[in-house]
């Protein structure tokens, strides 16, 4: 760095701003280039140099894995020898294939970027602010911002996300646990330890379907063998199949859990029946689109390098304290809120692993309207389902899962080095939230 100060300045670049600084930056790229995942502002954990992404709270993922492995282990150890002898050798083969499928799908759901939207750059944020700024003075925060658009004759409200500083695209919600906006947000699943969104919904769906098959298969074998495993299997089947049935309904109607719970496209109070504008009006097409549609790329470019002219990458984290968010989210009347809270707490009792002593954000019951994103009360009777409040678990050390996609992504960007250097962002305000401060936030349900 010292040598930069004495470098002769090229007269051609005298007119430009900070020529020597740019040269310095150029030289220091090699010394301290960082990848974008290192300065990622959301509450995620990264492994294998950004190839693997996990939510900060892995929820009960170790428990899920443990349950699956133990149940299958017991099955293979005790039932298979008996059944191979009396039935066919294909029993453990089918069981093995299903088990592998389940575990692979589970890992892909947990370790993939669910469709996180990167936060707006300061220039973008300023541009948006300028567009919506009316006459408000700078001393108080302007009222919550929404933008209405029409999608196929349905009016859709786009809300402004104070954390990510942008208007959320349709079907996008901000997950308070991961502190990211996620596209086509379904829910945050504690069993899987990650959000379920646009990019990993198909993995999630294949996980629960294959798990249903696995548990039914084991149950069927076990009935033949009549052991104590019957009880555990029966309960798992009832819940998992219930969940699978619910998600099959969602897939067939191109809905997300979030939209179903909030009743976005069913008859709302006071409004006429609204139709889901994203549905293709055919069960078959909806299934194809959701499960077999083109695989969207990851937008957060975890393994890309942080641009050199980015002093705030090393800056201290700023705290985004949006006290306004709580106010903007109270759309329900107090009566509705209480009703939902009671229903939620009933369902909470059914779900063993998540105890109320859990989380720093556990005050959701009394504060913000948490229930919209919690248990799926109306649609599935028995799904312990996936909901926001759950026990924090120690970080899971995941095995390396080198996704070729990311190296390809890196090469995609290396084709255009000019763009990297030519995008002049004077300051990127990254706001990595310190974990301790999470306790000060009320739960903000995704909207």
């Amino acid at each position, binding site marked *: 760095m010292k040598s930069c100060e004495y470098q002769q300045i090229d007269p*051609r*670049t005298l*007119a*430009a*701003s900070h020529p020597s600084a*740019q040269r310095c930056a150029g030289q220091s790229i090699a010394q301290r280039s960082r990848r974008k995942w290192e300065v990622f502002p959301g509450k995620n954990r990264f492994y294998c140099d950004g190839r693997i992404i996990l939510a900060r709270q892995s929820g009960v993922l170790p428990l899920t894995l443990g349950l699956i492995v133990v149940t299958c282990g017991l099955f293979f150890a005790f039932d298979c020898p008996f059944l191979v002898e009396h039935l066919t050798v294909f029993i453990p083969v089918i069981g093995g294939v299903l088990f*592998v*499928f389940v575990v*692979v*799908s589970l890992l*892909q759901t947990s370790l993939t970027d669910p469709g996180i*939207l*990167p936060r*707006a750059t300061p*220039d*973008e944020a300023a*541009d*948006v602010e300028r567009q919506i700024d009316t006459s408000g003075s700078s001393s108080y925060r302007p009222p919550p911002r929404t933008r209405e*658009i029409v*999608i*196929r004759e349905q009016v*859709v409200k*786009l809300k402004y996300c104070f954390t990510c500083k*942008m208007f959320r*695209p*349709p*079907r996008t919600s901000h997950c308070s646990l991961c502190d990211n906006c996620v*596209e*086509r947000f379904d829910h945050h699943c504690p069993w899987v330890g990650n959000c379920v969104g646009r990019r990993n919904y*198909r*993995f999630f769906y*294949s996980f629960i379907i294959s798990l249903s098959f696995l548990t039914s298969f084991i149950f069927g074998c076990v009935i033949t063998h009549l052991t104590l495993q019957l009880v555990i299997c029966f309960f798992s089947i009832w819940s998992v199949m219930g969940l699978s049935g619910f998600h099959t309904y969602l897939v067939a109607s191109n809905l997300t859990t979030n939209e179903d719970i909030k009743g976005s496209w069913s008859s709302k109070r006071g409004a006429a029946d609204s139709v889901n504008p*994203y549905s293709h009006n055919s069960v078959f*097409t909806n299934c*194809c*689109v959701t*499960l*077999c*549609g*083109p*695989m*969207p*790329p990851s*937008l*957060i470019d975890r393994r890309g390098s942080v641009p050199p002219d980015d002093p705030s990458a090393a800056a201290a984290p700023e705290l985004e304290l949006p006290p306004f968010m709580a106010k903007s989210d109270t759309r329900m009347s107090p009566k509705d809120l209480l009703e939902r809270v009671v229903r939620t707490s009933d369902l909470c009792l059914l779900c063993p692993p998540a105890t109320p002593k859990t989380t720093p954000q556990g005050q959701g019951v009394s504060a913000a309207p948490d229930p919209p994103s919690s248990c799926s009360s109306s649609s599935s009777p028995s799904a312990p389902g996936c909901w926001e409040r759950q026990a924090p678990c120690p970080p899971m050390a995941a095995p390396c899962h*080198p*996704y*070729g*996609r990311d190296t*390809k*992504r890196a090469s*995609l960007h290396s*084709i*255009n080095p*000019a*763009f990297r*250097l*030519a*995008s*002049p962002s004077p300051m990127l305000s990254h706001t990595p939230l310190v974990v301790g401060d999470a306790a000060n936030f009320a739960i903000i349900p995704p909207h």
Partner: protein
Amino acid sequence: MTPPPLTPTNHRKVQLSHITTHSLQDLRQQAAVAAKVFIQRDYTNGTVCQFQTKFPSELETRIDKQQFEETVRTLNNLYAEAEKLGGQSYLEGCLACLTAYTVFLCMETHYEKVLKKIAKYIQEQNDKIYAPRGLLLTDPIERGLRVIEVTLFEDRSLGR
């Protein structure tokens, strides 16, 4: 290097020599950013990636409206191609499902292939059309597919 006095005939020559002698990086170093314009997404057809074709007023003095709209329209078509629901994408999806999605470890998805095409197209547009006018398009993928960022540079070299 003082630029020669500008006449309509050598105006173009200055522009072209600018591009041949300087890369986009140098353009940035030599010129300051005057403003940034953001082309937002157009959600009237749902969540598919489309950008608004409305011509922003800040670019009126810099570039031809038709030219700009043509660029945005081509980009929209390319994104539509990436997200197209058709035989090929379903086949890719089914194959992926059958292999428990492990096929993505070795294969590039159709979307990624089209993204490469888009990146090439944007670079080409920048080289041919936008850089000579002191503009720079940023690939939307670098902005999370939210906006097309158009950077306006101060036209110092052209004496404005």
